[in-house]
């Protein structure tokens, strides 16, 4: 892997610069180290930093920029006539990339010589045969423009990588020289290095912003792309969800309402399970339980939060679902057709949410000042009266915040609904019907083999955007309520 070697080479240059600068400054200082402004290690670090960081930065930027340049110039080579009616430029470009990978593979396995792979006059059918012989995935007969574009793609890419290696190594060497030249006893090396470290710390802290930016951009761009292919009003107000599978043709109905309804229904069932249990558990733990019970029960309940959601999903699919069918199914009450239903997913999700509600509420109830309780006891109220009439009203905003956070968890939960809630999107009031949710459909639309440019795949991004906005709104609201409440008692 040449990239790895390039990376190691840059590090080696930096390490060399470190050693050289350190020895040099020690030699310049003579016997008396006190003449140095900084410790010798800082002179070395200065040289290493100046050699490695700009070089690696250029490396990363180059790797990000090169595909754009190559795609653009290759894209210009494909005439409009080469793009079929059912195809698009991006599809043809994907084929070009596949063909180029195939050529690489063919050269690597010895099916083709490098010269043959570059021969623009090569016989197309012969090339196709050789590619499939080498085990490359070539969908169909390669056309002349695609072959030429693929060859150009390879040439540009390999030239790009070669230039990149040279440039990166030159920058690393220049940086090393610069750092070494600066190395004199009165150079303020420590200050420079500390500035550099500080810049690195800021860069690390900015990754959080970049992540959010990445999420928003990837959602927004693909959502806009989706709305170009599918009207937004039908997406937001359509009551039918029936995507057609790729290749079979036909128009898809992609209305989000049945999915939102399924999401909210399951979340409500989950909250009906989790809120009373979690709240009462929190009240008992914070007001009644002795230290021993608390030390045992609190971590035990929190184990429920640490279990991966795939475990809950399997629990819903294979344990809770069949159990519910036994009671409510055709042999019992006759309300339930199959194990996957709103009730199954909601119940299991409720179990998962108990510790969320209980630990958050526990913290909030503990934050209520003791003086309020003492006042109530002093008036002759019993403990439960104090809790119901003094502590809970005081903690209410915080508890509402906790419930909102739990609701946002429930809405964004994926594995339990993928396995436990079913795949059919429907608007129904029966909690024993199978329904599906936004998250489950994101998974099913993106894990199929439909092509990324089709509305059936792009709809997942619009669904993701909706999900992101809803959960973000709930979180911001919850944090606002909790923060406002905390300020009251501080």
């Amino acid at each position, binding site marked *: 892997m040449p990239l790895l070697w390039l990376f190691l080479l840059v590090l080696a240059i930096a390490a060399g610069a470190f050693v050289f600068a350190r020895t040099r400054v020690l030699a310049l200082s003579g016997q008396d180290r006190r003449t140095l402004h900084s410790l010798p290690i800082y002179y070395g670090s200065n040289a290493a930093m100046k050699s490695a960081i700009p070089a690696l930065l250029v490396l990363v930027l180059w790797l*990000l920029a090169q*595909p754009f340049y190559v795609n653009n110039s290759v894209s210009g080579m494909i005439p409009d006539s080469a793009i079929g009616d059912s195809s698009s430029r991006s599809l043809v470009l994907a084929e070009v990339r596949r063909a180029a990978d195939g050529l690489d593979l063919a050269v690597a396995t010895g099916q083709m010589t490098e010269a043959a792979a570059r021969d623009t006059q090569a016989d197309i059918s012969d090339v196709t045969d050789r590619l499939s012989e080498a085990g490359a995935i070539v969908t169909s007969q390669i056309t002349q423009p695609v072959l030429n574009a693929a060859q150009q793609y390879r040439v540009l890419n390999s030239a790009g990588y070669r230039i990149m290696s040279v440039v990166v190594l030159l920058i690393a060497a220049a940086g090393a020289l610069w750092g070494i030249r600066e190395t004199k006893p009165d150079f303020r090396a420590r200050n420079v290095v*500390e500035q550099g470290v*500080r810049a*690195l*710390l800021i860069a*690390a*802290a900015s*990754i*959080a912003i970049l*992540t*959010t930016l*990445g*999420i928003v951009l*990837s*959602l927004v761009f693909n959502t806009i792309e989706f709305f170009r292919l599918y009207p937004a009003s039908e997406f937001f107000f359509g009551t039918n969800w029936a995507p057609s599978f790729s290749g079979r043709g036909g128009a898809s109905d992609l209305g989000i309402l049945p999915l939102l309804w399924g999401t909210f229904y399951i979340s409500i069932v989950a909250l009906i399970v989790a809120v009373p*249990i979690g709240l*009462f*558990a929190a*009240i*008992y*733990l914070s007001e*009644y339980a002795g230290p021993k019970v608390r030390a045992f*029960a609190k971590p035990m*309940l929190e*184990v*429920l939060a*640490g*279990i*991966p*959601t*795939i*475990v809950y*999903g*399997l*629990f819903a699919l*294979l344990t809770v679902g069949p159990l519910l069918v036994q009671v409510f199914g055709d042999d019992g009450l006759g309300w339930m057709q199959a194990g996957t239903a709103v009730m199954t997913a909601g119940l299991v999700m409720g179990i998962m949410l*108990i*510790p969320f509600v209980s630990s958050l509420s526990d913290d909030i109830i503990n934050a209520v000042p003791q003086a309020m309780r003492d006042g109530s006891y002093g*008036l*002759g109220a019993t*403990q*439960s*009266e104090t809790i119901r009439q003094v502590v809970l009203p005081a903690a209410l905003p915080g508890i509402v915040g906790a419930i909102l956070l739990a609701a946002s968890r429930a*809405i*964004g939960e*994926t*594995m339990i609904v*993928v*396995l436990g809630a079913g795949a059919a999107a429907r608007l129904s009031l029966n909690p024993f019907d199978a329904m599906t949710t936004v*998250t489950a459909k*994101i*998974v099913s639309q993106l*894990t199929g083999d439909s092509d990324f440019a089709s509305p059936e795949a792009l709809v997942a*991004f619009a669904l*993701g955007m909706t999900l*992101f906005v809803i959960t*973000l709104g709930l*979180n*911001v609201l919850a944090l606002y309520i909790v923060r406002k409440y905390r300020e009251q008692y501080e």
Partner: protein
Amino acid sequence: MTDASMDSAPVQGSLTTVDARTRKRNAAEKRFKAYGLVAIMIGLFFLVVLAVSILRSGIPAFTQAEVRVEFTLTQEQFDEAESQMLKTKAYENLFIAALQSQLEERGLEVSFDPAAIERLLGKTGSTIREHFRENPNQIGTPVFFNLAASSRVDGYFKGRVTRDTLVDSRFLEVSDLDLVDALADAGIIVSAFNWNFITGSDSGVDNPGGAGIGVSVIGSFFMMLVVLALSLPIGVATSIYLEEFAPQNWFTDLIEVNISNLAAVPSIVFGILGLAVFIQFMHLPQSAPLVGGLVLTLMTLPTIIISTRASLKAVPPSIREAALGVGASKMQTVFHHVLPLAAPGILTGTIIGLAQALGETAPLLLIGMVGFIARAYPEGVVSGFIDPNSAMPAQIYTWAARADAGFYEKAWGGIIILLIFLLTMNIIAIILRRRFERRW
């Protein structure tokens, strides 16, 4: 409240007798307390049910019905079988003859036909042929073959398949069960520990018996390496900046808001990010542990940042002041004194963050780590990062989504292994915290 009761009922009797109203209030008190206790009991009950159903359904995945047959192949038999057109068929016939003679040795008279053996054991011929072709020096000496029984036979041994529920099919017929019983009596079919489940790779959709989780454990391992290598330095650097250096300004606020929001973004959205940015935009290989690790890094960062900041905060200011007082720079104070003292807390938080990442499934589905991809062990370190592989939770999902009920057992078994890893990581974190955490 007391005013009202005084008006309506003048106080009579003494403090030692309890009046009706007090009794009612005391009863309400008891009820309320009981509700709380019941709520905790329900929570713990769910935990127990979960644990029991995992163990009960998962432990059978660790055993596998095996047929142990001693088999001697002479050189002549080998040559003869190799010279035939249907080579594996010839081996199969030899094998059946050996099995028959072993049954007769034990004095059991059961008639069976080759088709039944095929239903029980799959294609025995090719297994035997491959063994002897790879080890030609074993020709002529007795060799013990441990052949895995088919998933239905396995299910019959574990009680998943019974004579009543079994429907005759090309996989197994009810009459075959007589043969299975006879072989079991003779000690030829035994239930053995299924090493293949722990070390093996995923199998095709029609072979639940051969499925193993080993390859996806390796996939998870490489993913965790990426997560550790990226999220620990980035998380610690971010925390140091925010706790020790950041000035109070809009940029710092922006970072803080972003971190707290990222902690609450649904994991599936991170999957969309990974798909759009790492695969569509950067053209990183699909289904690669490298991409999975990058996505999980972004998810784990908020957890690590929050715990690192807490442990940096816990280091008393007097340490910083002492260091600054003897002439250390701000940077030296942080890196030479504060960070080492906060290290145990940071490490604990990192392990807990890694454990969370290890159990995460949803984003992995979107970047394609699902389906029949954990087929073979990676060939080296680089291949481990970039070749398609699955991860433990994604492999469990793959099995749960398959139609054959034999895979459900594997999914539960996979969960046991996943939980063992999580438990170990959490216990290490607890031990680290107990042993090294200092309270000032």
